């Protein structure tokens, strides 16, 4: 797509610092042994890490809880509405391929048919810089969905760790501008650099501990609707909603008005979970009353509905977070394994 560049590892911080003036720069960091994302300057940047943080970067576009607007009703004809769109500029560095593709999916959901202005404001003002995975982590299976371990699109800038340097691939105008700001830090990549990257990708692909048969999933999932597997797999679920909250593509939210004064209220929205009974509770009935139906909904939504509705964009990117976080050891790869083995 574009020309490949090289930046030496010890110059990465300089590159990001150059953007720091008008952007908040988000970088990976390790806190008490846990990989997190944080603002450069307030956290120590970490470059030599494997895997992805447990909380996905979706929080930078679609925060767990956000104010959307405040309304002030002076009288019945006079209502002031102030929207809380966030246009602060951000760079996120170190986004893994699973999350790059998840952002692409979220873009499709939030910005294709109906444009969500709050999401769009954040998204338009963010430069996403990916980092390929030279080694998969214990719960991930992105390779099976073709959403990793190396990204081939869906980034502004993409980095590949070649030891003491990064191979840099620019994928958008936003990325081009960011790189141009520190042009002198970059040199042209050689064929050997590109071959090195290809080699790393091959090696990484061979190191996966989990896999699913994605083409069979699409074929066989509909027939599993009435299977007893949903009951069996849902049995230990303790309804914590963790799978939804860590998922980089889960986007359901609830809305609430917080009354702040006699005439003033603020409408907020926050992440919701389809695993909770109240999520689909109607006045008299619950359309998904049993946990088995709610688990089935999550898996169908991730692995079937999203791709069907949005032209093949993946609902699940194989990041493995839901497996890692589940206190009941509910494992999407195990479930899909049961589905495809029928």
């Amino acid at each position, binding site marked *: 797509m574009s020309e490949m560049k090289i930046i030496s590892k010890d110059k990465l911080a300089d590159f990001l610092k150059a953007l720091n003036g008008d952007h908040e720069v988000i970088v990976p960091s390790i806190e008490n042994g846990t990989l997190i994302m944080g603002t450069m300057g307030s956290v120590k940047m970490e470059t030599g890490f494997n895997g992805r943080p447990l909380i996905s970067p979706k929080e930078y576009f679609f925060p767990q809880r956000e104010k959307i607007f405040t309304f002030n009703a002076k009288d019945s004809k006079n209502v002031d509405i102030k929207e809380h769109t966030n246009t602060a500029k951000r760079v996120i560095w170190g986004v893994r391929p699973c999350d790059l593709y998840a952002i692409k999916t979220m873009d499709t959901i939030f910005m294709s048919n109906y444009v969500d202005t709050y999401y769009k404001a954040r998204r338009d003002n963010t430069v996403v810089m990916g980092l390929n995975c030279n080694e998969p982590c214990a719960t991930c299976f992105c390779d099976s969905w073709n959403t990793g371990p190396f990204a081939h699109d869906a980034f502004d800038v993409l980095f590949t760790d070649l030891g003491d340097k990064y191979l840099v691939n620019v994928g958008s105008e936003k990325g081009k501008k960011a790189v141009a700001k520190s042009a002198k830090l970059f040199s042209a990549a050689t064929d050997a650099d590109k071959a090195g990257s290809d080699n790393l990708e091959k090696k990484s692909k061979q190191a996966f501990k989990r896999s699913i048969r994605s083409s069979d999933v699409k074929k066989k999932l509909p027939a599993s609707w009435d299977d007893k597997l949903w009951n069996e797999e849902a*049995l*230990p679920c*303790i309804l914590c909603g963790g799978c939804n909250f860590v998922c980089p593509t889960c986007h359901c939210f609830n809305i609430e008005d917080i009354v702040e004064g006699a005439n003033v209220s603020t409408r907020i929205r926050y992440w919701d979970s389809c695993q*909770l009974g*109240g999520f689909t509770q109607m006045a008299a009935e619950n359309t998904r009353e049993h946990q088995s139906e709610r688990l089935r909904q999550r898996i169908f939504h991730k692995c079937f509905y999203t791709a069907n509705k949005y032209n093949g964009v993946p609902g699940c990117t194989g990041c493995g977070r839901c497996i890692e976080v589940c206190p009941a*050891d509910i494992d999407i790869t195990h479930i899909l394994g049961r589905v495809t083995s029928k």
Partner: protein
Amino acid sequence: MTNSINEISGAEVILVIGSNTTEQHPLISHQLIKAVKNGSKLIVADPRKTQMAKLAGLYLSLKPGSDVALLNGMMNYIISEGLYDKQFVETRTEGFEELKKAVADCTPQKASQITGIPAEQIIQAAKTYAGSKKSSIVYCMGVTQHTTGVDNVMSCANLAMLTGNIGKESTGVNPLRGQSNVQGACDMGGLPNVFTGYQAVNNDELRQKFEKAWGVTLSPKPGLTATQMIECAHDGRVKAMYIMGENPMVSDPDSNHTEKSLKKLEFLVVQDIFLTETAKLAHVVLPGVSPAEKDGTFSNTERRVQRIRKAIDPVGNSKPDWQIICELSTQCGYKMDYASPEEIMKEIAKLTPSYGGISYGRLENGGLFWPCPTPEHPGTPYLHKDKFARGLGKFMPITYKQPVELPDGDYPFMLTTGRTGFHYHTGTMTRRVPVLNREVPGSYVEISKGDATKLGIRNGAMMKVSSRRGQIVVKARVVDTIQEGLVFIPFHFAEAAANRLTAANLDPVAKIPEYKVCAVKLERN
């Protein structure tokens, strides 16, 4: 717990009795689920077919309050079939003959009549539990909240000792404590009869140690338990109370009586983070802080002392509890001027043998399990290795006693109370969370399909539930997971408080109320 949480999944057999683990201790249920997936055998005894019961290989549907009969029935079979650990009994315990005598009458058939569990299931449980050298017992308030609470706990200990299933990794007796720091509160002497680390106030030598350290004279007389205080407030023997982080107006049994008692006090101080039903009765309310606003330690159910760290400054005029207590004490004439919780921990370590080796520096990497007597001691993930605290483990001969208030013609249903996974205790915090309120917006009564049919009611019908002490109106939840004749109401909800119905019948030793059994009647509202 005699074991640590991570050891649970290593047990070959786990008997869960009186614990709705997935809802009340979800992270511990994770260990149980892991154990089952790894092939461990899970036995669950509970009057309700809880989620844990559905995950179990063997589910024992016992009548509330019949725990001793079940455990004695198992021990009767284990002894008569010679399945007990003779070497362990000989070398580590005393009182075996007395135990043998106490359980001699309680054959599995007899136990079956009392518990309602088929005799062959009691035998299967006995064989399975005694058949492994790595068996563990997990229990919770279904065991303790009875007038026989102490008997129930001791029977669990008897069973573990009888089969040698204690004092090893993954193998022991594991009561699950609820609140994040309730273990710590007890460790710190938040009990009427002990100082920190369970050092008895009536032991002269120990008391003198504290008198010397604090430069005061201390009473050798044990004080009152929380449940006794309410009784004494009622009859005027207690005139003032200072209640911290507790909401007895909703959590104590027989709320109408509790309300009368608290209103009789000449002076009531309540320290809490919200204006609870109890705080509303107070003459003075002291605003405390939430865990996010304070530094210190929590000691959890596995005896692990862990640091908590302040994330935000106290909101408004609120203060951490330790600061409020220090300032009050100073006002009352005894100067307390600790600079920080860390300084208090230094004093705890100095005066408390089981915390002797605990210091903030050592808590940085995940905390320490007490007993941890010296700064070099690594802590103790499991208890009773080689030797019990008192030397030999003492079998307690216990026989079954029935609950105090059983159903009769006027009040034909048995009520058992408990909690849901979506609310915490009296709902002071969780009922302020919209998503949790959406899941469980208010109180309800679980009733079996059979009983619902007999009463002619459907799911969602409003029911008037009354006992000899009070009445509430709640929605019926018709379920197939509860015994006929038994109903269940969660106690979180002040506006329809289950404790308006419960009785303040107390265990004679621990003074814990029998929240798990009382008699009620149900009518369509």
